[in-house]
């Protein structure tokens, strides 16, 4: 039952094994809540919830930043030096 022994931070050897597998589990798109370890481990359940939440929130980030007007001015200046394209 060594695997079940908790370290001071609440994790077990099972947690280490589970967390090693996490990258591939996330990529597999399977339902992680079905994982046996998560049924009994609050730490890893919270970890999975957080990582899923971060990925979800990242997808919602929209382009919100605008370049300064100088960028277009610089582009115009540079384009004046470009060879004219055939029309």
């Amino acid at each position: 039952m060594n695997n079940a022994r908790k370290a001071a931070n609440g994790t077990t050897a099972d947690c280490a094994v589970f967390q090693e597998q996490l990258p591939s589990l996330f990529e597999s798109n399977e339902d992680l809540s079905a994982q046996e370890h998560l049924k009994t481990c609050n730490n890893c359940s919270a970890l999975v919830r957080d990582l899923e939440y971060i990925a979800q929130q990242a997808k919602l980030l929209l382009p919100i930043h605008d370049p300064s007007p100088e960028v277009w001015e610089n582009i115009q200046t540079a384009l004046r030096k470009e060879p004219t394209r055939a029309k």
Partner: protein
Amino acid sequence: MSLSSKDLATTPGPTAPAKAPNQHLRRNPPIAGEAEAIQKAQAGDGASFEILYALHKRRVYSLCLRMLGNVAEAEDLTQEAFLQLYRKIATFRGDSAFSTWLHRLAVNVVLMHLRKKGLPQVSLEETLEPSQEDGPRKDIGARDLTLSGSVDRVTLERAIENLPPGYRLVFVLHDVEGYEHNEIAGMLECSIGNSKSQLHKARMKLRDLLKSGQRKEAVL
């Protein structure tokens, strides 16, 4: 920045649309007037090119800023991306959405810039690893706070800015921009497994950053 007309080989290529176009469609809805502007810009019409700039500057700049975490560099590379667009727009054939094509061009401009700077995270995959102190801890536990429902956009943006560059690149490309691991591996010249591993570490590090931010708020 250099305005040299040297071909930096940053064009996605007229016959090489993104491998997973549907993934990008969520961010690439059709834009009214864009098709006409593209056609005219391809024929050399400056006013139409300006329309394309106005339509896409925010997205290109936001991408550059998130990948680089630096306003001055992001503005320089936005400028470079649009100059590349001007030079290459005639090669756009419409095999993918224009915004997907331009987006990939901008990603390539940023990666080319990073390679020129000699940053290791886009060349040798073993050096994608940030230093130990930059990396995420294995597990910080979840005994005090959970993130769910508690992170606003500004906080997340700031945490992404604070990621080590190697993590930030993969996280932005995959989780924010929607590229697949095989595409990222091709762009960064690393293995697919390495891309997956870096993404996981980036998310773990973000969790660290977000939780430590919450702890500080809780103390105040």
